[in-house]
């Protein structure tokens, strides 16, 4: 077989028709357009098309237009705020084939699954809003939500700058031009739809210790409004509301931590792990965001600002992250407070020793737990709608950065099944046998979704039973 074309991000743009109502002003509608290189006419044309589609759909449907399928492309639409449309276009993967010597292209339309990319789109917005993230629908969703994470809603920005559209454009550009790079469009899958959270399994007493540690922290430093505690890429405690935590988690695990670890490896950030601070004892605490070196007064480091909706809409906060060993404490401080080096030093003095201790204790438990056996007879994905808890043995790691253990088509099958089940609020179960003789069980009950891929060619339907695999999970 000939060359293969994988799914890639073709374009991503945000527009508002009200900004260029008159002829010749169409370009004003464009708030952000990727790729920048695209020439203006095409930008205008594509936006025109999307406007048309959206409007056309309205003549039949009360629900907004979600996607347009063409032979080569998939458009995803999202109207996160009134009259603001975010559109993402991804390419349909294809294979160049030969038929009687004639080359022709076979497009694999069904490899691109709307729900996945809608999710991505929503997240992208949300990430922007808090700071932004998303799979194509999943990806588009994510894209917007990530934007929110770091920027607040579009309207919020406009309101703050008395409708200075340029500021919004800058923000969009600043955020998305980076963010879109990080988007692994071709790797998106059902996980992006859930965009859930991996919780750290802990025994009650250790968990309570973490609890009390956090309480103490917040009592000592009252301007810390919310705190989240993570070990590796797993959440132990979140004081944020679910939806905020979900997007924050996405940001931390897919963006902040990875880049920090790179730095660490390159040893660019301050060395001397076991250094003694002005405060007492030796500890391994360090700021991930904030002062790179606690002994160097001169630099406060980069402290991102994020937008949280936990208590009030669009609450702007500093995101201060501190880490010792594998434990990270994420502190959100309302921007009304000024970040001073002194504060950071105080924090370091408090957090350093305690967190170091706590981290190594958790580490012990963790190492005990992590000793898992070789290749299991089945792989599963678990998601709990109530607390967003998520688990996967289908992916090699939580960030699904490196590969999956099952055939891609089987993985897509999971998305099909979950999409089917999402149509009904009630419990359901689906068991299928693929043409490659894999068994797949999808189960939705008690607000939880659970997918098992079983690799037993000669099993029969009776033997396949979701419950057999239903290990109790939070």
């Amino acid at each position, binding site marked *: 077989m000939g060359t293969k074309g994988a799914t890639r991000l073709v374009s991503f743009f945000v527009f508002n028709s009200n900004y260029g109502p008159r002829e010749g002003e169409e370009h004003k509608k464009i708030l952000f357009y990727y790729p920048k290189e695209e020439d203006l006419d095409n930008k205008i044309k594509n936006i025109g098309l999307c406007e048309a589609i959206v409007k056309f759909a309205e003549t039949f449907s009360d629900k907004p237009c979600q996607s347009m399928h063409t032979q080569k492309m998939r458009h995803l639409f999202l109207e996160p705020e009134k009259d603001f449309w975010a559109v993402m276009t991804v390419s349909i993967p294809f294979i160049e084939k030969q038929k009687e010597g004639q080359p022709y292209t076979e497009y694999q339309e069904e490899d691109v699954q709307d729900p996945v990319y809608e999710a991505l789109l929503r997240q992208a917005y949300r990430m922007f809003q808090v700071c932004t993230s998303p799979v194509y629908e999943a990806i588009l969703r994510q894209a917007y939500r990530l934007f929110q994470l770091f920027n607040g809603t579009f309207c919020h920005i406009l309101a703050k700058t008395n409708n200075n559209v340029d500021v919004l454009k800058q923000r969009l550009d600043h955020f998305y031009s980076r963010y879109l790079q990080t988007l692994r469009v071709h790797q998106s899958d059902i996980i992006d739809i859930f965009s859930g959270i991996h919780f750290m399994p802990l025994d009650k007493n250790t968990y309570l210790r973490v609890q009390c540690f956090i309480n*103490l922290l917040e009592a000592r430093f009252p301007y810390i409004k919310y705190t989240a505690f993570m070990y590796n890429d797993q959440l132990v405690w979140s004081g944020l509301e679910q939806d905020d935590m979900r997007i924050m988690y996405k940001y931390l695990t897919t963006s902040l931590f990875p880049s920090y670890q790179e730095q660490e490896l390159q040893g660019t950030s301050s060395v001397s792990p076991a250094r003694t601070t002005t405060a007492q004892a030796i500890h391994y605490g360090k700021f991930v965001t904030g002062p790179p070196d606690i002994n160097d007064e001169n630099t406060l480091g980069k402290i991102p600002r994020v937008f949280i909706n936990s208590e009030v809409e669009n609450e702007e906060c500093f995101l201060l992250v501190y880490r010792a060993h594998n434990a990270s404490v994420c502190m959100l401080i309302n921007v009304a407070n000024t970040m001073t080096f002194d504060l950071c030093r105080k924090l370091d003095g408090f957090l350093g020793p305690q967190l170091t201790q706590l981290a190594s204790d958790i580490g012990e438990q963790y190492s005990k737990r992590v000793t898992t056996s070789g290749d299991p007879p089945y792989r599963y994905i678990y998601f709990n709608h*109530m607390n967003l808890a998520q688990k996967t043995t289908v992916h090699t790691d939580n960030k699904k950065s490196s590969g999956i253990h099952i055939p891609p088509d089987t993985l897509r099958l999971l998305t099909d099944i979950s999409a089917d089940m999402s149509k009904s609020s009630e419990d359901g179960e689906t068991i299928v046998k693929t043409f490659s003789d894999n068994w797949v069980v999808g189960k939705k009950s008690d607000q939880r979704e659970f997918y098992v891929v079983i690799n037993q060619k000669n099993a029969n339907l009776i033997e396949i039973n979701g419950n057999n695999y239903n290990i109790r999970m939070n």
Partner: protein
Amino acid sequence: MTSSEDSGSFFIELCKNPIRFDPVDKNTNVFYDDANKQVFTVRSGGAVGVVVKGPKENDSSTFRIESRGDVMSIKFSPDRKILGIQRSPKSVEFINFGDDMSTDQLEYSQACKGKSTIISGFVWTSPTEIVFITDHGIEFYQVIAEKKSLRSLKTISLSVCWFVWQAESGILLLASGSLSNSLNPFQFRGGIVTKLAKFEVDLPASTKPPRQSLQERDVSMALLYGQLYVVVLRHQPRPGTAAAEIVLYQIMREGPARKTNILRLEMSGRFAINIVSNLVLVHHQTSRTSVVFDIHLDGESDGYVHYHYPVVSPLPIKPFKLLLPSLSPQADKMEYNCELYSANWVVFQPNVIIDAKLGCLWYVELKLDPLVTMIPDKYRLVKLLLVRDDSKRVILSVCRNMLLPGQQANLVSIAKIFDMLNKVYQQYLESECQNLATDSGVPQRSRVIIDQSDMYTHVFSVFEDNKDIKYKFMVAVIIEYIRSLNQCAIPVQHYLYELIINILVPNNCFYQLHQFLQYHVLTDSKPLACLMLSLESVYAPAHQLALDMLKRLSTANEEIIEVLLSKQQLLPAIRFIRSVGIVDTVSSRKFLEAAMNTEDPRLFYTVFKFFEQRNVRLRQNPKFQPGEHCEVYVKHFESLFGTDALAHIQVS
């Protein structure tokens, strides 16, 4: 009760009603027997009469004895049957008494052995045993009342300067040696004398000889926290230092007594020592103040000896007003302000103060409430209170107050205090279990236990009453408490969970609540599940969480079915009964009723068919039995799907 403001500032008091007796004068002598806690007033050698007064009204009595010269010492046997009187250094006389304290006044006497021997005193070691302490040692006798004679049990010879007797522990301490600083403890129990290892009390190395020898009045014995100590007052511990100190020697079963604690008085002059509920009370005459030491509060230590400082700064005893019958009939009783720390005071162990001139015997008492304000460090305070008798009320109020805005303690010390309370709580529970296991009714030394319900009703209730406490703090505190309980492996009561839930919910901390459940910080229980159910309206997932909990409990099938049916969740309900294997026993009527109420024909059809099949399985016939009262549902089914849709008996 006198005016409140001074009651606040004094924590040492003299008991309300002192024991009154005729003051000492030229023909009245007064004796105090600390073993029986009795005051003897002997008028003109007893001929006029002897009045005995004890702590309780009833054991005061009056009798006469023949006047045979001045009484040197007079003591009842522990059972008040025999009175011992010493009038001469050579012998002791005895008189038998009846239960009604009647006496035939017939004396019988026992002289000490050896010509030159001098009896310096005697003590009852049991109702029928008595010890003479002489300058040559001790003579141990059995008193045979009916024969009116004594039998010598044992004699130990040792040159004795002076002695101290501790009745509760039956320990007799004999001072010997040139400086009378080598102390020989003897234990008397059940007619047996045990000699314990003797030990030296190191005397201050005074510059100019002759060195001060150890004075009887500077030595006493005291039970502190169940341990017997020899309490030695040193006036000039080290040259140069004016400040006196108290040295505690702990009497050991084996080996010589160990010097364990030193109490720093930081004053000099005349002191008197009392022991009140395991606290060492030191009265300082010159400053007319008293200080308190608690050896239980960890002081600084050099590895061998712990050094302690007064728990609170010196304070005077609370002024005491005596009511005297007035001379003039018109004016009623007149008040008399007793002089505190007066020269006439004689102090006895453990907690007795006698003013012989005044004719008053007081018990020294300790008031805990004033301490609360005097000890700023809540942890020290609670630690101190926790080992006092009936301090529960005070401790609870301390805990309660440390949660109030303004006087709020920080979480660290709150945590420490919780841990301390729960340690005791845990030990208590454990010993309880042991007692149950081996029902050896060993009466626990009654200690103060602060259990969960105490905390709930008296401490955490503050959250209810005081609205301006931040919820974060409340949650933090309760979580600390739960943490502490868990660390002590004490099962947490559900009302604590309810409490925390009732704080989280109004503040919309549902996700947090959810995480608590997720990590089983809130342990499963039916009440908790029910509470969760009630939250569904404000937090949808609560319903499912409750169900999960009930399922985990696995003792709540009925409840689960009810919940599901009430939610019209018929299929889950049926799947559930199938999963727990009670399909054949449930009432078809209940389910059909619920199904009919859903007004969903599909659902009704499914449920109806399910039970039809059950009928077939149970009775090879799809029809419902009259007993099941399902006629109405059959009708309903027919009206929806027609009669043909009813299952028919399979003939195949």
